[in-house]
């Protein structure tokens, strides 16, 4: 964070300073270098010019001095000159604008003839022999001018140069003597002193050894001062040892070794350059400042807000939500900071809200915990209550079962008398006509009469059979569960009417009430249902109507047996069925129930003109144990009806008017599956079935013979066995297309035999015949090894059908 921040700052700073300074630096360096070179060259050129001028002047000075000597020498009148004359002449020479401090005339041998000095008095005794001195030897020997080295007066320190010229004899042309003088180089000082090279610059003349001969400041010469002359002009150590621009120019006097030096302190020589450098430096400093200021501003305007943001972010990330980023400007960073602050505000608000909600949740959770605890207690209590309820319900169910059974027994009891009556009627017919035949043998001869009697007897027997079967049907086992099969409601209505006939006909008549039961049945689709339940429903409803009619009419107790015709029709019960397309049913909550699609319904209406119901009774009539019949009723009839309708997903509507009658409207959903082929009551089996070899295992001889006769009549052959063991032996010995087995037999029952036969020959169909057939069929009982069950008593038709089915491997129950 610190490093990233200092990185941004330093980068900005470097960028700004770089932008401000770098170009200036480059340009400044270039300008400085150029200026330095230029200035140095210029200054050096100027100095060289000055030096050249001074050198020329110096050379001129020396040559003038030399010339003076030469002119004087030419004018010396040879040997005619006396010593005194010579002295005076020399004196004049010395007094000339003082070039020479001292001048001597030497004779041919090098002795001084005369000498003149500006300082001392010279007499003849002061004259010296200078034969060995170079100032004599050179001019005397070669005739050339002698220019000696620079020397210095030991007292005053003044520089001198010994100059000597030959004195030529005009007659001989030879050297007659030498004129030698000490040239005062001090006079050159004046030449030099006028040379001005800047403020601190100086021009001076150095001798062959570097000693300063002439300088604007005499002290330098008198010092004396030595200058370490460099090889060539340029930047060197100056006279004072400091760096200087030094120009060198030799004085063009042969052998003098003098050179003019013009020097200028380097700083002064390069003053313009230095000034430029200063200016550039100042600008650089200003640019640097500007860069710093810009960088500072930029840092202030960029880094500081960013840092503020970063600090705030850090603070926030560490949990301090009270921090806010400083909003320093209205620019993008300001907007960012504002947005950040807004975001933080919202975050804080959200967190506060969350905290509040968490607190609320905690409270709610605490409350919930409490509630849960309470609810658990309640649940526990409920569970206990439920347990008690279940126990109670179980008891209630048991009680209810008992009551239902009781009701059923009551109904059975009610029917029993009617059934007995009917059965007696049938038996009476059979007995009567059979006795007629027996007692009147002559009538046997009358075949037509016999056939008529037999037909009546047969009908009576059939009626009896039907009466028994009616009873069986009623008593069918009820607890097989809701096995819904396609049911023809019309058939059930017919069955129910006949099944309840003893009630509505017999008992009603016994009470002096004539009840007419009519059925108005339209073709209707099958309904999915349980035949037994639906039959019970119908029976109950008919009973209920009968009771209602009886209740209205009050009955005619003790009326005795009356003829039907004598009675007016007191009651009427009408059963109607018809088909209706229903709208989707809506339950109490308004939600569609069952199929939301329009569906076919089969409607059953049972109307009576009985007592009807009051509103209160109507509202409560479906309640269990509610009864208007006092001790006679269980109060379960209509509630069972309602339960059955509910189980069949049907609807029950009661339209009733007190004193006028009641109509129960029951609608049941039509079965979607197509109706199965109706029972082939009278199949044309004779033409289809090939002759069969049948084994009949039956302990009752009469039955055995009857079945043998039936089979023979249809062209089949039959072997018989009196019990199971015998039947098994015969089956093993012969080959049979069909086996008829009675259920109840001594030694080996049908139940035991059938599986053995099936195991021996699985392809051989077996038919079980039993007096319990209807009950077995109703209970759905399946016997192992049995393909089909037939109920006794058997008719030829029943047998034919059964044979036809099993031989076609069709295991359909017939009954």
């Amino acid at each position: 964070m610190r490093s990233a921040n200092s990185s941004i700052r330093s980068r900005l700073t470097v960028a700004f300073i770089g932008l401000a300074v770098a170009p200036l630096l480059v340009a400044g360096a270039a300008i400085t270098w150029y200026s330095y070179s230029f200035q140095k060259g210029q200054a050096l050129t100027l100095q060289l010019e000055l030096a050249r001028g001074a050198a020329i002047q110096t050379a001129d000075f020396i040559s003038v001095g030399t010339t003076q000597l030469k002119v004087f020498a030419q004018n010396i009148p040879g040997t005619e000159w006396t010593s005194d004359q010579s002295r005076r002449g020399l004196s004049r020479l010395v007094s000339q604008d003082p070039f020479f401090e001292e001048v001597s005339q030497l004779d041919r041998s090098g002795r001084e003839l005369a000498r003149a000095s500006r300082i001392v008095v010279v007499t003849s005794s002061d004259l010296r022999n200078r034969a060995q001195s170079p100032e004599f030897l050179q001019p005397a020997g070669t005739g050339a001018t002698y220019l000696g080295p620079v020397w210095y007066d030991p007292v005053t320190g003044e520089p001198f140069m010994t100059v000597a010229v030959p004195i030529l004899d005009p007659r001989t042309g030879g050297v007659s003597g030498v004129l030698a003088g000490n040239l005062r180089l001090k006079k050159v000082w004046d030449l030099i002193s006028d040379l001005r090279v800047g403020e601190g610059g100086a021009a001076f003349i150095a001798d062959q050894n570097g000693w300063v001969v002439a300088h604007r400041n005499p002290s330098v010469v008198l010092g004396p001062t030595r200058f370490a002359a460099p090889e060539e002009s340029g930047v060197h150590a100056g006279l004072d040892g400091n760096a200087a621009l030094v120009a060198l120019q030799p004085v063009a006097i042969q052998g003098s070794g003098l050179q003019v030096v013009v020097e200028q302190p380097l700083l002064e020589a390069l003053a313009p350059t230095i000034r430029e450098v200063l200016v550039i430096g100042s600008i650089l400093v200003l640019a640097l400042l500007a860069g710093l200021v810009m960088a500072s501003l930029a840092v202030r305007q960029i880094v500081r807000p960013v840092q503020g943001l970063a600090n705030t972010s850090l603070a926030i990330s560490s949990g301090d939500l009270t921090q806010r980023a400083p909003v320093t400007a209205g620019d993008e960073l300001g907007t960012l900071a504002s947005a950040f602050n807004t975001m933080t505000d919202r975050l804080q608000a959200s967190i506060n809200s969350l905290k509040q909600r968490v607190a609320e949740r905690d409270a709610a959770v605490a409350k919930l915990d409490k509630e849960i605890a309470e609810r658990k207690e309640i649940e526990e209590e409920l569970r206990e209550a439920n347990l008690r309820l279940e126990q109670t319900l179980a008891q209630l169910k048991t009680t209810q079962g008992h009551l239902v059974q009781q009701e059923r027994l009551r109904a059975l009891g009610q029917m029993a008398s009617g059934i007995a009556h009917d059965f007696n009627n049938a038996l009476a017919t059979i007995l009567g006509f059979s006795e007629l035949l027996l007692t009147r043998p002559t009538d046997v001869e009358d075949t037509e009469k016999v056939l008529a009697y037999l037909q009546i007897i047969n009908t009576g027997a059939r009626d009896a059979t039907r009466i028994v079967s009616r009873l069986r049907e009623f008593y069918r086992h009820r607890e097989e569960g809701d096995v819904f099969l396609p049911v023809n409601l019309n058939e059930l209505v017919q069955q129910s009417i006949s099944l309840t006939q003893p009630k509505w006909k017999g008992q009603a008549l016994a009470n002096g009430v004539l009840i007419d039961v009519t059925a108005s049945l339209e073709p209707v689709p099958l309904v999915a249902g349980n035949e037994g339940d639906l039959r019970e429903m119908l029976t109950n409803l008919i009973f209920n109507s009968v009771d209602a009619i009886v209740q209205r009419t009050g009955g005619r107790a003790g009326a005795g047996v009356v003829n039907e015709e004598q009675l007016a029709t007191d009651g009427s019960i009408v059963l109607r069925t018809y088909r209706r397309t229903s709208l989707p049913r809506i339950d109490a909550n308004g939600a569609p129930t069952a199929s939301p699609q329009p569906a076919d319904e089969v409607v059953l209406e049972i109307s009576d003109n009985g007592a009807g119901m009051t509103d209160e009774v109507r509202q409560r009539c479906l309640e269990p144990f509610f009864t208007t019949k006092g001790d006679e009723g269980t109060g379960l009839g209509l509630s069972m009806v309602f339960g059955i309708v509910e189980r069949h997903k049907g609807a029950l509507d009661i339209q009733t008017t007190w004193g006028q009658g009641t109509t129960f409207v029951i609608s049941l959903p039509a079965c979607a599956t197509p109706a199965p082929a109706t029972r082939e009551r009278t199949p044309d089996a004779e033409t289809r079935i090939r002759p069969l070899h049948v084994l009949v295992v039956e302990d009752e001889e009469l039955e055995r013979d009857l079945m043998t006769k039936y089979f023979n009549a249809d062209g089949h052959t039959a072997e018989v066995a009196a019990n199971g063991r015998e039947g098994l032996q015969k089956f093993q010995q012969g080959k049979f297309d069909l086996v008829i087995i009675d259920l109840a037999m001594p030694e080996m029952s049908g139940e035991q035999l059938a599986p053995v036969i099936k195991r021996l020959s699985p392809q051989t169909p077996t038919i079980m015949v039993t007096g319990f057939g209807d009950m077995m069929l109703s209970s759905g009982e399946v016997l192992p090894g049995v393909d089909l069950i037939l109920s006794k008593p058997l008719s030829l038709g029943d047998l034919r059908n059964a044979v036809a089915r099993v031989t076609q491997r069709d295991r359909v129950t017939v009954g």
Partner: protein
Amino acid sequence: MRRFIRFSRQVWLIPLTALVMVAASSCRTEPAMLTIGVVNFTSILNPVYDGFKLGMADLGYVEGQSVEYVYSGGVGEMADLDPEAREIIARKVDLVFAISTAATLKVQQATAGTRIPVVFAPVVDPVQSGMVNSLSRPGGNLTGIRTGGFAAKELEWLVVLAPGIQRVLVPHNPDDGASVAGLAALREAANKLDVELVVHVARTREELNPVLTSLPEDVDAILILPNPVALSAIADFAHVAVARRLPLASTSYAQLEAGALMSYGPDYTRMGRQAARLADKVLKGTAPADLPVETSEFFFNVNLRTAHDIGLTIPDEVLQQTDRIIRLP
């Protein structure tokens, strides 16, 4: 950040300081008024003082603005020199300009132990007088213009102008170094030139009176050494010399104007200018110890009026060798 700002604030100071320094160096502050004390033995040497001031003016020292001179004129008497020198020193001067050997000796004594620089002019032989160690390296707080021995040459020219002179009167002040040195050189030259010196010792102006009032009969020339006592009476000597038609030789052009026949020696004004150049160096920081003593130039001057007055004819050959001539009107 804060540190950076503080740093950047300090950065401002850098160019500011640089600018101030540049401004300060470009606007040179006015130098404080310099005080130069002048000690002079005799008003005869005033031309030295005048030349000094001219030279100083040439070098940029404007009297009353950048320099002031403390000068009460030539004291005239030897005894007054010492108090004068001490009084000048007490004025806390920046430099003392001592005129004449006698004055320089007193100033040297007065400034002993101080660092007050002293420039002298003229002094005949500062080495012998103990003022400097050597001419090229004075070594102390004194430097200046030396005249050296010119008395011999003065006598020689006197002989040239007036051939045949035998006895030359020389006023001498044994207390004055210049006079002593001059007399020594003069004696040597007199031997060579076969001239007899008649030395008259006079330590004060009054002691000259006997000579002036009754010049010895046998002297045929008078020669003045750079002896302030004698120089201060140059007019009287000139008067006496003309009256006796005797040639009078002196040291400088100033005495020529006072009536001397000739002079040989330094030019006081030029000497003053020369001394001013040294004073400038000293005032600008060069130690006198490092400033070599310079030697003055000598000049040969002739007064044709006096020559006429004393009936002396000077050959053209001689005149041609003079530097300056006071001619007949």
